[in-house]
């Protein structure tokens, strides 16, 4: 415990230094070889979603239930002056819905479609080498992102949209 305060002090200095360094360095181009992913958890399992498949991410948005029976349909909500139909990503991925999911993402393919999930772990920018193709996984997430020691199946948003439309 005596070493913790020292590390925090170093961390504050490091943050300050990194922030200041970002302003002192020249504008550099973004490494377009890196891809951005959203690191989430659904039903406690790690998943990843390509940032390009999303149009918006929001948290703590209440959904109004609708008298329509559909698998995974949570209800509707208003986002960015639009009515968005929200589905439970846990149900769509085959998990048991336990509690109200906090996060809602809007798909890029259909901005009126929202997918709710449990937990948001952050954004990841990984290289293509970190993505592998898993032939044994679900069709909705047949790619896998290597996030350090965590293997995150990449959710195929378009496939989910197609599935929803068919239903």
């Amino acid at each position, binding site marked *: 415990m005596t070493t913790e305060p020292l590390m925090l002090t170093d961390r504050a200095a490091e*943050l300050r230094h990194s922030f200041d360094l970002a302003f002192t360095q020249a504008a550099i181009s973004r490494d377009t070889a890196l891809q951005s992913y959203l690191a989430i958890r659904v039903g406690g399992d790690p998943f990843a979603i390509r940032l390009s498949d999303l149009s918006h991410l929001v948290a703590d948005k209440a959904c109004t239930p609708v008298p329509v029976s559909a698998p995974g349909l949570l209800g509707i909500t208003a986002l960015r002056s639009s009515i968005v139909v929200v589905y439970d990503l846990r149900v769509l991925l085959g998990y048991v819905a336990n509690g109200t999911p906090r996060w809602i993402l809007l798909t890029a393919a259909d901005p009126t479609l929202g997918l709710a999930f449990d937990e948001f772990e952050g954004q990841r920018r990984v290289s293509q080498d970190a993505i592998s193709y898993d032939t044994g996984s679900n069709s909705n997430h047949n790619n896998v992102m290597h996030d350090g020691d965590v293997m995150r199946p990449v959710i195929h948003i378009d496939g989910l949209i197609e599935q929803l439309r068919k239903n």
Partner: protein
Amino acid sequence: MVRGWTFGRGIAAGFAVVVALTVIVGIVSVISLQNAVSSKDRVIEHNSRALIDSQKMEALTSDKSSSARGFLLTADSKFVDEIGTHRQEFLATLQSLRDNLSRDEEKRLLQEIERDEMAHQQGVDAAIALRRTNASVTSVATSFNDNVVPLRNKLTASTGALIENQEQALTQAKIEANDAASTAAQVVTAMVILSIFAAGTLAFFLTRRLRRQIGTTVGEVQSSSAELQATANQQATGAKEQATAMNEISTTITELLATSRQIAESAQRVAQVAEQTAGAGRLGEDTVATAQASMVDIRRQVDLIVSHMLELGEKSQRIGAVLEIVSELAEQTNILAINSTIEAAGAGESGKRFAIVADEIRKLADRVADSTKEIRGLIEVVRSAVNTTVMATEIGSKAVDQGAQQFVDVRTSFEQIADLVTTTTEAAREIELSTKQQSTAVEQVNVAITSAAQATRETEASSGQTYQTATQLTELSKELQRLVESHANT
């Protein structure tokens, strides 16, 4: 009525009859003896006296004659006095005879004597007178011989006749007295024989009646003796059994006494131990009180620690709240960065710089998130430690409370123990006292049992003696019955 008479009454009646007969015999004997004595007395008093008086008169006649002769010879006047004296005495004797003699013949003889005496006196007086006349002695003597002497002789003859008569009367009286005595003897003898016969008859009937009664009574006595013998035997047997039981009781009492003494000793030891325990309890109370005070101090310190820890926990929560705000900001920043990246990607080339900024924001948000995660972790550690410490402190406080309560309970228990020990001590003392009293009572019971056993043994001995006495009585009654029956058979 006679059949209902008792032995005493029958014997008394028999004796009464015998006494009555004896009295009758005695009365008859007395009467007969009195008659005989009277006869004898009469012979002695009357007849003999009369004879003596008669002989006295004869002697007086002679004396008077002698005195007359003496005067005639001497002319002494004293002879005249003597003559007078002799005559007075003669007349007195004559009167006495006249008073005592009652038969006609005797009265006739006395009258004759009286006449003769008077005549003789006249003659003597004449002779005296003659002498006084100074007549000659010869004439006086001749006159005396011619006149006085014949008168004297006649008087002497009549006196002699009287004497003879009295002698005959005396002889007759003797004969009559003897006859009376013989008659009395015969009567007494007859009465005695009669009494003996009556007594014998009475004795026979009384004996027979007594024998019958005695036989009946002896039979009852025999049966009673047999029953008494059986009872005495049972009593002896019972006394023996009672003596045996008394011995067992005495043994049991002795064991009980020993047990009571052991209990008294144990009670005394218990009382001593209780007193020691009470002393230890009091020491324990003091120790508990000291420990309780220490527990109170500990409790106070623990409460202080808890309050400080709770304060630390609150501050940790504030830090956590601040951290939540920072985390929220980081999250919103991250969301903003993501949305910015998305918008930048949608903006194409014109959004590349914004994408760079968004990326920096993302990095900053990630770093902040990482730091926030670390801090949250630390806060969680601190809060966990605080909670753990608080819980531990609470547990410790509860333990202290429990310990204090236990100390209170222990103190209460000590007090209860002290009270119980006191009660136990008192009870032990009471038990000791009661046991001592019980021992005393048991000892008294033992003494009483011993006395009862002694009395039982005496009763057994008495029963044995009673049995022997009953046996002897049975034998005696048998012997008596045998005697009564043998007498009846004879």
